[in-house]
């Protein structure tokens, strides 16, 4: 929570955006392109390792009566399996591995971001946009492979008067193109706003204590807010991973089952 507390004195010098700074750990340069291994890359690797450990190590025992970790792994599997079944139907089963990986990666990135001194990879729009763009291109490709040029009828609503056709088709295409934007902005904005808010209030606590005297007692108010807000942030971290996965399911459903 107090990632920014170590720099700047007396509260006013605290920069709530410091937590989002990317700095390289292992500088790598490939033909003039900066491809350094940064703290962002590191926390993405941590998220991937976390997902792999949960699914591989926890399921290693394959116990009839699952232990705690195996229960978590089984629950998350069933959760995503139900989500795919409810939103895409049986045709979606072959895309389950992708949705599951996506959900777990986003969930782990969000949750790891809740650790003090950690880095929230999903609070950077380029990360969420890359994920969203990958989904968008993948879903579009699936649509064209399944339906061929017929997929373009997605942009033509049924029972439309011919006069309105050019206008509506353009609007529909823009609406389709806006999908990766809304998908990525939603996750990024939620994570960034929440984490900034936490740090701002942490700054208030330190500021009040630094002011001394009567003000020290006042520090309890932002502190209490932070405790409550941390709980809310954990809910948001889960909810946003869920929304990200379910919207992928909805888009996939559109591509598989043309109206």
């Amino acid at each position, binding site marked *: 929570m107090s990632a920014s507390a170590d720099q700047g004195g007396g509260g006013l010098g605290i920069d709530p955006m410091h937590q989002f700074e990317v700095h390289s750990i292992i500088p790598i340069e490939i033909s003039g392109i900066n491809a350094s291994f940064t703290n962002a890359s590191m926390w993405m690797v941590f998220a991937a390792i976390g997902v792999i450990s949960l699914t591989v190590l926890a399921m290693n025992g394959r116990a009839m009566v699952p232990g705690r970790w195996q229960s978590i792994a089984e629950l998350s599997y069933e959760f995503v399996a139900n989500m795919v079944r409810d939103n895409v139907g049986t045709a979606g089963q072959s895309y389950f591995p992708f949705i599951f990986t996506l959900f777990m990666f986003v969930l782990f990135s969000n949750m790891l971001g809740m650790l003090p001194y950690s880095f929230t990879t999903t609070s950077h729009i380029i990360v969420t946009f890359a994920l969203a763009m990958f989904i968008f291109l993948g879903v579009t490709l699936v649509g064209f492979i399944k339906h061929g040029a017929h997929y373009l009828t997605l942009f033509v609503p049924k029972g439309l008067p011919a006069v309105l056709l050019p206008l509506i088709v353009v609007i529909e295409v823009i*609406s389709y193109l806006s999908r990766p934007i809304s998908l990525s902005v*939603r996750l990024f904005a939620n994570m960034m706003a929440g984490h900034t808010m936490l740090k701002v209030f942490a700054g208030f606590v330190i500021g009040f204590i630094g002011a001394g005297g009567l003000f020290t007692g006042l520090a309890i108010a932002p502190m209490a807010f932070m405790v409550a807000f941390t709980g809310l942030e954990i809910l948001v971290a889960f909810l946003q991973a*869920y929304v990200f996965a379910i919207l992928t399911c909805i888009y996939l459903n559109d591509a598989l089952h043309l109206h």
Partner: protein
Amino acid sequence: MTYPTDPESDKTDSRADLAALDAKLREHAKNQRKKNPEPADAGKRGTAIGMAFRLSTELVAGLIAGGLVGWLLDQWLGTKPWLLLIFFFLGTAAGIMNVFRTATLMAGDAAQDQDKPDVPSGDR
């Protein structure tokens, strides 16, 4: 998921025992579901803030997408700034359409949850 017997303790009948127990559990779960249907999944619709935020991003995303398309077309066709202006408004229309669709979807979900809460939603 608690089994009264330890499956490791008695290897010989444990399989038959487990099968019997499994049948019993299934029966119990079915009765339970019939008697006490699961409440509407709270996570499905999310919090009110989540809904509001979802709608606003839909609107903004339409605007950005429209503006971007217009700007790129301007660059390509050299018609600055007309297509940007036109597509900005088309983007607004697309954003409003997005919001309308999302809201319809949300209302549909809410109505479904109210009308028939005993829809079997797997064994979540």
